[in-house]
């Protein structure tokens, strides 16, 4: 029996009068990879940003309904605790340009003013960079600025930075759409490694990517969650016509 980590009930989100996420109900199981796909403007990114309460930072953005993490409503918790438990990786790699690679990895501790002994810091940095398969590439240049890395390396650095905080869930907002194919496949391989310890929710434009990496897939269309099922079933035998049309490329 798999346990649910994120649970949404009647969840809605809007920008002003623009209703972008409509009445979403979803149960996300622990240690799984969930792909969220759908055409542009379908509300998938907005839904993702509601999970760790990044949505509300945009002026005029509102949300309602239930969003639980381990049975506790994240909208009753302080956003800072929510974001410590639910990490996020963005569409474009965004390492802190003023920090070294080393400091970027422990940025969550360093910039939050959490003091750690040097040995502990070194351990976290090595462990996190190893988890994202970046350690071998950067271990001799840990003091260089993060922005000197290639795009794919920067994105893995951003994943390492998130992993270092030991969250329970990691949200990926189209994490490979700014990367070249080789970096994309490196990042995709990473997802499988990370699954053991984290729950991954990945928003993607790319259907092949959803099919390749995920255990379950959610299909959003015009703000509604149309269908949510095992990825295999979604891509071979979708129940809803709209899902069928989307994956056969009738619209995008």
């Amino acid at each position, binding site marked *: 029996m798999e346990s649910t980590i994120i649970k949404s009930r009647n969840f809605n989100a809007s920008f002003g009068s623009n209703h972008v996420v409509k009445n979403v109900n979803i149960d996300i199981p622990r240690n799984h990879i969930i792909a969220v796909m759908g055409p542009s403007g379908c509300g998938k990114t907005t839904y993702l940003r509601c999970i760790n309460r990044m949505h509300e930072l945009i002026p005029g953005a509102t949300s309602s309904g239930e969003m639980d993490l381990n049975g506790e409503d994240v909208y009753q918790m302080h956003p800072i605790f929510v974001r*410590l438990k639910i990490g996020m990786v*963005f569409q474009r790699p965004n390492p802190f340009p003023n920090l070294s690679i080393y400091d970027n990895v422990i940025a969550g501790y360093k910039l*939050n003013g959490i003091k750690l002994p040097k040995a502990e810091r070194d351990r976290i940095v090595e462990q996190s960079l190893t988890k994202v398969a970046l350690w071998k590439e950067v271990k001799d240049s840990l003091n260089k600025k993060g*922005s000197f890395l290639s795009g794919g390396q920067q994105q893995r650095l951003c994943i390492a930075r998130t992993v270092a*905080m030991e969250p329970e869930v990691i949200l990926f907002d189209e994490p490979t759409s700014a990367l070249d194919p080789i970096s994309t496949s490196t990042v995709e391989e990473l997802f499988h490694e990370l699954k053991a310890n984290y729950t991954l929710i990945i928003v993607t434009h790319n259907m092949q990517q959803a099919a390749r990496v995920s255990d379950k897939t959610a299909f959003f269309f015009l703000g509604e969650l149309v269908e949510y099922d095992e990825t295999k079933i979604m891509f071979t035998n979708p129940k809803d016509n709209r899902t069928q049309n989307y994956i056969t490329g009738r619209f995008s």
Partner: protein
Amino acid sequence: MNIDSVKFRLGKNRGFQILIYVLAFACVVPLLAILLFIIKAGITKINWHFLVNIPKPVGETGGGIANALVGSIIIILVASVIAIPIGILAGVYLSENRKSKLAYWTRLSTDILQGVPSIVIGIVAYFWLVKPLRGFSALSGSVALAIMMLPIVVRSTEETLKLLPPSLKEAALALGMPFHRVIFKVVIPVGIGGILSGVMLSIARITGETAPLLFTAFGNPYLSFKLTKPMQSLPLLIFNYATSPYNDWHDLAWGASLILLVWVIFLNIFTKIITRKWKVQL
């Protein structure tokens, strides 16, 4: 299309290019003229003695501008201490809250403040501080200069931070950082080059201000370190001594002008270096 008309147009083009070169050079001429003139008049007056001594009374030769140099540094330091934190934080507010009512009024006020004549600011400082405290003081001069610095610091901070990508702040917020840490640990450090260049320019701007100091810091022929007492400064010394009838004092004023000019030029060069060196590669 015959060859002559093409040639004619090429000739016109040439003429236009030359015009641009000449006008660009024309912008350099005033600075060069001022520099040459002040250097010629002031360079012979400057020596170690000139920098470490205070002016001699009328009739005695020699004397220096140590009191004005020290006074200028103190007054500007205090003004900076007042204006820089307020200016940077107000700039942060403006870049964070672009559309709020307060932002609108703050922006409007800083724009207008930038255009307020410096003598008016001096008069206001006089009524605010000099009169209630019953005496001219370096502090009141610093406040007047701080008011002049504010708009430059505020707007340059705002413009710098506006250019930072929103993804930078999101990265920090997604790591669970509270707002004040996002500002102090990420936003300001990344924008520090631009913010500092604004600060330096504002210091360069107030270094030569005479009018706000006339009825605040007032001037002082002796070396003084007291913020509550009148204090000499370079522009005040130049103003007072250049308008005096004594040749020795004219010499002091020439020397002080050169020092002031060199100071401002160095600040500007320094600003350029800082902006280049501390620019964070995004």
